[in-house]
């Protein structure tokens, strides 16, 4: 049953990717809507899995690699759908749908039934810390995708051509949307970092937590976005330069979220205790 839901969820994201390509190449009155429906259905299936894992582990389902990625994908999808419906943007789905599909396939390839039952994670504040971090990563990722679309559209316009890529939203639209996403994500990440420090204090954590590679990567990410937010809010800057900084921030997010675990041992990695289905 669990596997079926996962296959359905990822399958719907895959379908959304195909539909996004079709919608981009041959836009029609309902093609973009079909992409959104498919993504919404896919994220609903993932939410069901997360609920199941939450019931099994008795805490926030965000401590295994698959759960973390599922949380991230659901948050990114919700943010994208909200943005797409509110601003009637078209064309971004061609980047975000395949991206999320690839991330989910990557996550499921490392197992999907593992849930974390360590006593250390049975803490509501820790759950909130992790969830806010994932939501901020998701929003930063959406901003990064918008920035990528900005750079593509900018290159296209500089080449003085009207091509299929021109169907991406207008530069100013992308600039405005990425500014919104970065603003909310920056606040969320700040809350997550503060919660993390409070948790270390509360649980009497030692210096390992503060020198952890994941913490360092996250603080570095926060610093990049702090500069970006300052450039936008205080200096009132816009344009390609800021889009490139947003792409750089997106790379930092990917490193802090996934990459850091591949190159260094982190105290943020919990041992996985597999709980068989039915327990």
């Amino acid at each position, binding site marked *: 049953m669990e596997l079926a839901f996962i296959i359905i969820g990822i399958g719907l994201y895959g379908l959304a990717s195909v539909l996004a390509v079709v919608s981009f190449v041959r836009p029609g009155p309902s093609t973009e809507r079909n992409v959104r429906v498919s993504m919404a259905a896919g994220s609903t299936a993932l939410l069901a899995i997360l609920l199941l894992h939450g019931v099994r582990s008795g805490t926030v389902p965000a401590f295994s690699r698959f759960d973390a990625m599922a949380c991230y994908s659901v948050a990114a999808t919700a943010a994208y759908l909200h943005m797409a419906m509110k601003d009637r943007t078209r064309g971004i789905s061609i980047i975000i749908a395949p991206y999320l599909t690839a991330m989910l396939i990557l996550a499921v390839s490392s197992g999907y039934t593992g849930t974390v039952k360590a006593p250390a994670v049975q803490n509501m504040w820790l759950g909130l810390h992790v969830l806010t971090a994932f939501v901020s990563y998701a929003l930063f990722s959406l901003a990064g995708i918008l920035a990528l679309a900005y750079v593509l559209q900018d290159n296209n316009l500089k080449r003085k051509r009207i091509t299929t890529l021109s169907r991406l939203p207008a530069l*100013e639209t992308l600039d405005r949307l990425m500014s919104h996403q970065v603003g909310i994500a920056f606040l969320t990440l700040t809350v997550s970092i503060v919660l993390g420090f409070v948790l270390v204090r509360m649980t009497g954590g030692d210096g390992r937590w503060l020198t952890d590679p994941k913490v360092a990567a996250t603080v570095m990410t926060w610093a990049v976005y702090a500069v970006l937010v300052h450039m936008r809010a205080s200096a009132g*800057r*816009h344009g*390609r330069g800021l889009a490139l900084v947003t792409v750089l921030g997106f790379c930092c997010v990917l490193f802090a979220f996934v990459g850091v675990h591949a190159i260094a041992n982190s105290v943020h990695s919990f041992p996985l205790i597999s709980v068989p289905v039915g327990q």
Partner: protein
Amino acid sequence: MNLTVLGINFRTAPIGLREKVSFTSSGIPMALQRILEQLPESELVLVSTCNRTELYVAGIEIADKKGELVRALLTDVQADETGELSQHFYLKTSHEAAEHLIAVVCSLDSMVVGETEILGQVKEAYMLARQEGTVGKILNPLFQTAFRYAKRVHTETDICRGRVSVSSIAVDFACKVFDQLDRKTVMIVGAGETAELALKSLVDKGVNEVLVLNRSFHNGKALAEQHGGRAIQFELLTDYLSGTDIVISSTSAPHCVIHANTVRSAIKARRGRPMLLIDIAVPRDIEAAAGDLENVYLYHIDDLQKVAYENLSKREQGVEKAWRIVKEGTAELAATFEGGALRLLLREFDGWGREIKDSAIKRAFAKEKLSSLPEPCRDEIETLVQKTVNKMLAAPREALKKAAKNGQWDDYARVARDLFDLKNDSEQESLEKESERETPQSTGNEK
């Protein structure tokens, strides 16, 4: 198919002549009623645009009455002019007329192939005719089918994709750079026909403010008033540049009037907010190096024309496919209209065969030798004769069915009627009779 189109268009007549035979939307209903008085029992649709005036007539035989039809259409034109105008009109009938209508609504017959306005204009003409009650069971399905095939051509081919005029491409680029044009300021430097068209397109899109800079302040003021804008002294160009989102330049100056350094200062003051520069002048008004600056999008006339040619080329590639769809539409219409005529003619064939059989049997059994034959033998002979007649008619029936499918109906039907000496009713009358036979209660004469 009893259909005729009488028309005049940009290919057959210059605008000076076309404007004499054009009708406004408010004038079309009156014209339809007037023509209906002269051509009673006919179905009519009158299409009138700046590039064509066409009268679609169905239900009556008028193929050889071009002059009469032209006079019916042009009552307001002097009699001596009617003769001159008449030679600029074309007359198409039957399949050719149906194919022409589909080609027109698919914009394959337009001055700019792929323009979509013609579909709306023909729809409006059709609605006016419906309101006047001048469309019926021939023109209704004809126009509905044509609109359906126009939609197919628009979705299945590239003939409507991409703009082909410099001014509309400039607006396209503006829409790719800016979020909402209604918050933007446009500056037009100098004035030229294309620049004014681009400005007009942007004003139509709802730009917030229009600034006009011209060497002649008086001319600039006139242009500004025309577009609800503000005239600015030419010398103040640099001061106003940073507050401008879109610049359209088209002066006749022999040198650059906007230098890269000026644009650099402006974009710095704008803190990276993008700026669109459209240079339609030859020689160029805006230094090419300005286009290399970040967040500056500079398009010269050649860039815009290149896009126009590319789009035009894409449209032309779609024309062949569009014509194939038009042919399919014509075949469908032919099948729709000729299906009814075919059924009627085959029924007449059966009647003709039955008549021959009955007559032969009657004469044979009247003879003394056969009059004493028992009933079973008589039935057998009757069946034999019927089968012989059926076999004789089988080949012509098949040939007619094939002709109806292949669009050769008119010729075959005429020959068949001549060969078998069948009554040559007009198709419309025949269809009506058939319709009456199928719904006998509507005749009121059912016995």
